[in-house]
């Protein structure tokens, strides 16, 4: 009986948590997307600067740029979906779209305007992380 009770308790706790988490406000979700996008901006910035100073292998940098573009594209589509219900999401859309474009450009040619792109990524990252704080 004790084992059955503890199993029922666990199942009930899990159900309560699932219901509670499904009701998560869109602004909370948008903050997560902004934090992730901001992190990818920082990753792109570090990677392009490290590549220029030959501190990382070119093959690793290319792979990271590709991953960043794919992840930013995913964040962008999630923010688009949330933007009707959340201003935190809507505000982030232009910055994430620009970061995704820069990631694509770095994938094509990482040697062009390194300083300018790094500075822009830092600005986009800072803008996104401001809205990501709770």
């Amino acid at each position, binding site marked *: 009986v004790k084992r059955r009770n503890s199993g029922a308790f666990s199942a009930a706790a899990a159900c309560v948590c699932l219901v509670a988490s499904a009701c998560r406000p869109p602004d909370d979700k948008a903050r997560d997307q902004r*934090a*992730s996008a901001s*992190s*990818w901006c920082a990753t792109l910035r*570090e*990677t392009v600067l490290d590549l220029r100073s030959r*501190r990382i*292998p070119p093959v690793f940098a290319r792979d990271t740029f590709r991953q960043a573009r794919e992840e930013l594209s995913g964040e962008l589509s999630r923010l688009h979906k949330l933007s009707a219900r959340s201003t935190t999401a809507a505000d982030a859309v232009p910055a994430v779209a620009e970061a995704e474009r820069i990631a694509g450009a770095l994938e094509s040619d990482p040697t062009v305007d390194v300083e300018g792109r790094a500075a822009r990524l830092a600005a986009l990252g800072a803008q996104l*992380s401001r809205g990501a704080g709770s």
Partner: protein
Amino acid sequence: VKGPLKVLLGIVTSICGFIEAGSLSTSAQAGAEFGMRLLWAIAIATVCLIFLVEMSGRLALVSKHSLVAAVRERFGFRFQAIPLGAEIVLDTLVLAAEIGGACVALQLVTGISYRWLAIAVGLLVWGLLWRGTFSLIENGVSALGLVTLAFVAATFVLRPDWRAVAGGLIPSVPEASGSLARYSFLAVSILGATISPYLVNFYSSGAIEEHWGEKDLVPNRITAALGMGFGAMISAAALIVAALTLAPRGIRVETFHQAALMLVPPFGSWGVPLFAAALFVGCLGAALEVALNLAYALAQSLGWNWGEDQKPHEDARFSLAYTVVILASSLLIVAGLNPLKLTLFSMALTVVVLPLVVLPFLELMNDPHYVGTYRNGWIGNLVVSVVLVAAALLALVVIPLEVAGGG
């Protein structure tokens, strides 16, 4: 274990085999997102692990039973089927995560997608188990794990504020209220990555394979305490390095590519290759142990012939068990499961099922029929029970929150 040299070898093996996909990724994520604040989770988990590993060795060398064999004998097969089922599911997921981690390590330096590499890595794991002996698996591959000491070296190169490091050993709540769920999820994942059920059963099965006896009680205690204690220092070092290099730059760890950047500030152009080597060796060693453990658990539960030192035709069902699980886990990676996300969730799930494995184990460790006069003290019973039950309850709360958060 014979003589101080063997004890030393056991300690080095434990230290070098400590880092794998789970401990490395959870430490890197914790450091990148919360600085030093989750060091306490590694410390608590390590104390618990030392108790468990020492107990599993003691059980094996006094009773001549591995953990699984003793649980089956004491509680019967119908009871044993529950932890066995949980272990089969978990070990398959953890093995997939380790094979995936080794594949990503190769991707970091070759650019070839990890999905294409999964079958090759799976074949390497299978070939080493098929052709190798227990001491090759335990000592040979783990010795390569010396490369994971790069994280300890990086810590000293980066010169952390040791007061902040000490402050991280005291549990604290993060400032941002919205990050409490994430903080708790990472704490649970660290516990799961450190206290892996496979490690406990693997250790007791290894003691049987190596014919330990009662004379090895003291070496067992020394190996468990020093090996696991210093091994955990590598996990802590990875967390500190991530806190010093990734957190200030605003980089969170969502992929191993982001984690690899943590060794670039201390080691320059050696950083990414060193990270890849540490990840590959750690994951390869863990994959060998997890695959073997699953075969051990099945063979000991179902009464099959077993032993890594036997030829495959002498324990055909045992060899078939690890062959099938390696194939299944490799296919999960080929199918495109994200190794890092898989790692995190399998580590958190580990915590949920840990009480199923550990509570019967504690019962055995207090049964004079199995351990004679070498029964557990109340401190060991209390520490292990409280930590595991509290962690399992916390896991039940935070895992759904993380799933809904898109984790």
